[in-house]
């Protein structure tokens, strides 16, 4: 297969970026999108040109490191997958593909397609945990939890922290990310005692870090590679309102 790639190049956070055009040939259908970029980069090395920087690690859709804006959509055209799970068979032969980094105020570009997502961890540090010291926990089966509750918590907890929800949001809001953590913990009895403080602290931190507000568009749910739904945002809002009382 043959493709024309329009890839965002940017030397550093304060440098002006631009699109660079590349042609790439002899790509097989079972090549993954990131492997296609590997091939491109190896071709660049052969010409002595600086390679395209992009984040990636596990390449099986679970670490959350990769994240490219492909043809205007985070993680590309398919639903329910990360960039590393996208295969070239998904694109028509000869097509032009535009590749950009996540674009959001809270995620400054580091270089090319690589962005700084540390703001997400800063939100978690505000309260995305259960305060229990190592060694103090009671026997695991002391507290039965219904299967449905656990599954609901697991649905929310599937978040891999890739930032696609932020990248796709017109407001640059991290609401789905925050909601998934708040929801995952506050559904469980272990997370209840801090539920109120957690919701307030995490939302406050999100606001403080330059993320936008949620206006219920729902594009985050559309683009989430782990199919996390806005129902969790509803739960977050409820937790938050209870706290205000």
């Amino acid at each position, binding site marked *: 297969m043959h493709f024309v790639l329009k890839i965002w190049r940017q030397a550093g956070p304060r440098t002006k970026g631009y699109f660079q055009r590349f042609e790439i040939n002899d790509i*097989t259908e079972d090549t993954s999108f990131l492997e296609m970029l590997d091939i491109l980069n190896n071709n660049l090395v052969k010409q002595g040109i600086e390679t395209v920087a992009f984040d990636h690690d596990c390449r099986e859709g679970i670490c959350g490191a990769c994240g490219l804006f492909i043809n205007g959509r985070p993680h590309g055209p398919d639903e329910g997958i990360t960039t590393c*799970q996208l295969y070239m068979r998904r694109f028509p032969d000869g097509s032009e593909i535009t590749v950009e980094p996540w674009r959001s105020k809270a995620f400054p570009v580091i270089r090319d397609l690589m962005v700084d997502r540390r703001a997400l961890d800063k939100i978690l540090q505000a309260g995305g945990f259960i305060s229990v010291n190592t060694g103090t926990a009671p026997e695991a089966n002391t507290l039965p939890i219904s299967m449905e509750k656990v599954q609901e918590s697991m649905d929310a*907890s599937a978040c891999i922290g890739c930032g696609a929800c932020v990248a796709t949001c017109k407001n640059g809001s991290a609401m789905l990310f925050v909601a998934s953590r708040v929801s995952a913990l506050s559904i469980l009895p272990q997370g209840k005692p801090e539920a109120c403080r957690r919701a307030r602290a995490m939302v406050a931190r999100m606001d403080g870090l330059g993320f936008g507000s949620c206006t219920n568009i729902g594009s985050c749910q559309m683009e989430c590679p782990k199919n996390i739904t806005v129902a969790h945002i509803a739960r977050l809002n409820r937790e938050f309102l209870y706290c205000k009382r």
Partner: protein
Amino acid sequence: MADILNAKIPEGTLDSKWTSHKESLGCVSPGNREKMHIIVVGTGLAGASAAAALGEQGYRVNVFCMGDSPRRAHSVSAQGGINAAKNYRNDNDSVYRLFLDTIKGGDFRSREANVYRLAQVSNQIIDHCVALGVPFARDYGGYLDNRSFGGSLVSRTFYARGQTGQQLMLAACSALNRQMAKGTVTVHCRQQMMDLVVEKRRAKGIITRDMVSGKIDVFPAHAVVLATGGYGNVYFLSTNAMNSNGSALVQCWKKGAFFANPGFVQIHPTCIPVHGEHQSKLTLMSESLRNDGRIWVPQKREDALALREKKIRPSEIPEHERDYYLERRYPAYGNLVPRDIASRAARERCEAGLGVSKTGWAVFLDFSFAIARQGKKVIEDKYGNLFQMYEKITGENPWKEPMQIYPAMHYTMGGLWVDYNLMTTIDGLFAIGEANFSDHGANRLGASALMQGLADGFFILPYTLPGFLADKTGEPCPDPSADAFLRARSEVCRRIERLMSMKGRIPVDHFHRKLGVLMWNHAGIVRSAEGLKETIPQIDALETSFRQGAGIPGNSFTVNQELEKAIHLEDYFILAKLIVTDALYREESCGSHFRTESKTEEGEALRDDKHFQHVAAWQYNSQEKDHLLHKEQLVFENIPVTERKYK
């Protein structure tokens, strides 16, 4: 010699060793802890849990990770589950049985006392993880559910769908985040450890490279904890993440930490087969699939050929013309034999010309029976995301036709030699999780890596490391402007300059891929003296051509992923030769290590306890041929040393 390799195993009966040892360990008073600086390198389950637990106690912990967030460490990819001896199924599980299975699974090449301790703390891990909010699967009554894994006759694996590693990682990171908020722990992201600073055989700190600015920095500490995982990426194609690497291990080895059993590497039987020459990594399909999937190949070669050419579909082959070779050869364990055995059996069938897929290097993992018996809904609940993943990668629907799988490089049992306190042969340097060698012997059982990482990090190191620090509270943190630091720093700078000055135009990947093929062919599932002997000169030749032909565009003062690859590859050359040296030395077959010269008449592995019932710990020498071998004899007092039988 015995003095150098003192494992410091406590006296007393097996079940009292850990308790009495804890009582004998010193403590640091709460007021003194904030003066004690600890470095943790790596934020997988072991590193994150250790840093969090030490932070909770009040130590000053600096954590280093290569990714943009600790949560991305490769523990996140573990799918199947985590073992614990809870006996929730009432199927006669116990601490002793978990210990027994682990020792036997490791083919009697691990240390009794360490493994018993691992089994002892396993239950606490589950308790703590539930408290941290891990949504482990539960049954209708709301109690925790279990599933079975290879190498065990009881059901003791706890799981969270197919994302157990990720859920545990989130839990460990949440504990870490809590400590960051408190200010006890500082996490440094996008930092790579470049060297260990050692003075008078004591670890004093580390040298790091900032992967964004290229800045080379020094960090002093009272103790350094290495939690950098394994070195499976030596083989290029593996289930490891792309950034997992063995560089920190190599630096520590060069500085005097002994490397134990480097040749023990695990090849996982259920991975998506290699399909193309540009493939960057291999994807694991969880071992839990072997609970319900049956592994088979056709009995007739012409069927195998027809399948490769897609002239027939697998479901068209009638039942009596299929060979369920694991069930046939190992009736007691069937499809649940340990990983090494399943991998060798798959290779044997493919060598015999019965492999499927277009390359002929794959076998079937068939769920049609389980779907017929249990219903699609049940199977979907258990493995839905794995089926989806398989379909995305291969473009084939596993609900209709069986999956195709083949073994792939997965995990390294070998690692830095550590004593009972998890301290290496360098004072103040600890190694935990996959980075050490201690618990899995010659083969790791499924769902035991997560257990070991969290055992080391949450429940063992937080006792033994303070024990080391107890008499050092008067010591100030080492001075980063001391000679040892400056020397190590300038050495790192020189190394980077040397790599950047390579003027070729061949990408680093090209050489790494070649190294991988060499290692897979000669030091993979099956090894022979002949093959191993010819490998080292080939690695040397490859390294020479790398230095002459490779090139790194750009500079070292910004993100330069080619430079990162080159740094790792230099270290992989060293590790590759160490793996081969160890595999050549060990003239027996045990666990994952199968030497063609040492097998039974039936073709099963033949151990040589008389000559090799020991840990092979290698001491670095700048003259490669002169790496010094130290042996730690393994003593089994509580378990009869038997032939490992799964028939």
